[in-house]
């Protein structure tokens, strides 16, 4: 169900809870469609392991960017122990990743404010308890649309292209108008001559 516009750039999006270096994954969504069917379990295992390790290693209240093989893990651990991890390809813009992580953390904590509810969550219940995660994952596949800056920038660029085209057609219009001017000049001259001739014929009578 990858709704990637180009390719899958984000492989996994996970929310975890870290209490005194004990890490428990609360929700996780993965998109491994770019790997062949038989590799998927191994990759999934690796992704899980990566998430856990990264959350373990990062101190509370910090962000970190870990690079490994062709993956890039962005992790943000809030001071209250809530950790969000995003595993993407190596060329994902980090600003987008971290702003997305921020928003995800806010959303999660607003949806499940009590730590007690966290205790009942584990990755398998994600689809039922926290379906928005999947949506976020899909949206994040295209960093252009996820990051508001990039979105605005893209729209501005499109507008600029449209304006350029308009300018070109405006120039063409200018040329045509020039043509029209010349032709109407000639027409006016011809009609004047016509008038003169008619007048002459009329006035100069007699044989």
């Amino acid at each position, binding site marked *: 169900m990858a709704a990637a516009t180009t390719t899958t750039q984000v492989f996994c999006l996970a929310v975890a809870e870290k209490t005194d270096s004990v890490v428990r994954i609360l929700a996780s969504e993965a998109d491994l469609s770019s790997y062949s069917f038989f590799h998927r379990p191994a990759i999934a295992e690796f992704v899980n392991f990566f998430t856990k390790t990264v959350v373990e290693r990062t101190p509370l209240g910090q962000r970190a960017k870990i690079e490994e093989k062709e993956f890039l893990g962005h992790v943000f651990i809030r001071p209250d122990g809530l950790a969000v991890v995003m595993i993407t390809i190596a060329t994902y813009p980090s600003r987008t990743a*971290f702003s997305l992580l921020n928003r995800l953390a806010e959303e999660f904590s607003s949806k499940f404010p009590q730590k007690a509810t966290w205790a009942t969550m584990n990755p398998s219940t994600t689809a039922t308890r926290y379906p928005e995660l999947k949506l976020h994952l899909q949206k994040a596949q295209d960093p252009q649309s996820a990051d508001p800056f990039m979105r605005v*920038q893209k729209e*501005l660029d499109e507008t600029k292209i449209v304006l350029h085209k*308009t*300018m070109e057609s405006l120039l063409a*219009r200018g040329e045509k*108008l020039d043509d029209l001017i010349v032709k109407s000049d000639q027409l006016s001259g011809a009609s004047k001559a016509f*008038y003169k001739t008619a007048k002459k014929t009329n006035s100069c009578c007699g*044989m």
Partner: protein
Amino acid sequence: MTVKNRTVEFHSAVESILSRSGPGPAERQGLLSPSHGGPQTKSEFARASAGIGREINATVSKLQKLARLAKRKTLFDDRPVEINELIYIIKQDIAKINQQIAQLSAWMRKHGPNAAGGGGGGGGGGHGGAAAAVPNNKQIQEHSLHVITSLQSKLATTSNEFKNILEIRTENMKEQKTRRDQYSSFTGGAPVAGGGIMGGGGGAPGSSTDSPLYDPERRSTPTPYVNGQPPAGGEVVIDFGSAGVMNQQQQQLVPTNAAINMEIIESRSQAIESIEATIAELGQIYRNFAAMVASQREMVQRIDENVLDTEMNVEGAHNQLLKYYQNISSNRWLMIKVFAVLIVFFMMFVLMT
């Protein structure tokens, strides 16, 4: 900023008044000598305050010199020894002046009433003299009070300026330090990082914050391997055991967090700047657009004029033709004339042959 010490003037004015309104010089003497230090104390007071004024002047000039030195922002030609010396000297001067002013005011308080009392007692006989002396002493007291207040206020402004200069100096020093760090760490970053990895050990390389920019990618890479399979002939770091690596990891991640935050902030600011530039460009494009459309409006107006002209001409010509046609079709006289001429020619030809 100079302390205008007019005690000498006042002194001479008082003397002239004394010499003018002169009842018994004896009383005068009586007046003056018990406050015996009268002229002497006065002149002593004058001397002391003059001295203080001079020192305040000197301190102010030193302070200006210090200000000039402290404002220099060059990275290398800074002369901290001189500046520190100057600061020390100025501090001492200010303290000394303060002390002197305090002494002077205490002395004046002690001796003032004495002078007044002495004057009153000595001039007991010369009532007028005493009456004349008391206001003099009171005036002297007031004057000395004023002098002391003005000296104190000058000293206060001087020390305020001194404080400002010190603040400026500390700011400059901080700036210089950061700039020095920038320059030195860019060159020292790479070799230090290299040495750090090679030298390894539990302690993180004591390099400045720039080395993490080089490091975290390389250092973070081994982490997932440590618990899994260590790569064959991998990084030297791994050989120091996971504990050492973890330590380094922790210490490397701490500066990495700051670096990441900076990265995020910088990329945001870049994005915003580019958006702003794009919007400005768009504005420019729209302006050009409007100018071109305005110029084309003129062309359209010309075309319009030409076409109207043409229409007028054609209309006129059409009317002429209509008139002509009417002429032709209605003027039988013309026709008759034409036929008459034809017939004349025909007759002529017939008659000829």
